[in-house]
């Protein structure tokens, strides 16, 4: 060992480690599709929209408290500065039904977008702020909520449904 307190990469040049790194590059490389996806991800960004962060995900809460979790229902809450988006996902026959609620309630156009850049569907939120989607299982989506101007568009972070 060459250094008592190595703190950066320069002090990690142990030849054995360099060998392991070379082998990892062969045995367990970063898959090309991950790199391609990462590069393309910049294109999914909407600079005009505000991010609504995921605040609550019942699937995770349930798993971490080892409560028995209802397999068929999952609730999520996203929060932006002036808008909460509550989402309930329930399992249909071979699809996922997404019921949404905007708070405070307002009318809006809501897009469900896939991470390949496509829009699955656009629906209208009614005057009570409610909306509904049918989604394919096992896809990654986000919602984009477009309210009456001058309210800024809000996009949720990505979720796997």
């Amino acid at each position: 060992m060459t250094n008592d307190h190595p703190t950066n990469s320069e002090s990690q040049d142990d030849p054995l480690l360099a060998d392991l790194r070379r082998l990892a590059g062969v045995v367990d490389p970063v898959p090309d599709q991950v790199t391609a996806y990462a590069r393309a991800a910049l294109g999914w960004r909407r600079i005009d929209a505000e991010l609504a962060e995921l605040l609550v995900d019942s699937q995770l809460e349930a798993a971490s408290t080892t409560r028995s979790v209802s397999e068929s229902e999952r609730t999520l809450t996203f929060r932006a500065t002036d808008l909460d988006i509550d989402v309930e996902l329930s399992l249909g026959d071979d699809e996922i039904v997404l019921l949404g609620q905007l708070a405070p309630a307002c009318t809006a156009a809501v897009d469900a977008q896939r991470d390949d850049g496509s829009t699955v569907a656009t629906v209208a939120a009614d005057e009570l702020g409610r909306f509904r989607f049918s989604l394919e299982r096992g896809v990654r989506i986000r919602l984009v909520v477009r309210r009456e101007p001058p309210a800024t568009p809000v996009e949720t972070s990505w979720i796997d449904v």
Partner: protein
Amino acid sequence: MSSPAASPSELLKKAAAGDQFAWNAIVDRYSGLVWATARAYRLSRDDAADVAQTTWLRLVEHLDRIRDPERLGAWLATTARHESLRMIRRGGREQPTDEADLFEVPDGDAVDRLLLDQERDGKLWRAFAALSDRCKTLLRILMADEPPSYEEIGAALGMPVGAIGPTRMRCLDRLRRTAGVAELGA
């Protein structure tokens, strides 16, 4: 992979303005760290790919709100760790990889070509695979390309930075003592 000279904060600023080249430079610099983090949590390659993709989406979402841009690597490592733990809590699409085949070679051709043909590599990799979980986890991160800083490693593993050096030393010593590696000249 040569390191671009630009600092993480410069690259972030340009990427936030839509500069694809700056963004690619970020991806190139840190994709090894993000990947190694997910794999260190024993996720299958499929689940690790999911975690890596989610991690990059999170960065896109947060491009203009990274509090300490110079520590972008640590931010990515932390995010990849959270997403890995989330994947594990959700049960993943698959169970975490079996201990036995955790770092086994996924692709037979690559082994044949680069491990079995070269006895030394094969021995070294088998000796690595026989180490304790703790050692394999830490070494897997250390094996990332580009070599991560201790701060990034600490963020990836939720480990105090001060514990990394001694653990690393112990694990590499153990690897050296393993039958077959000592006489390999490493």
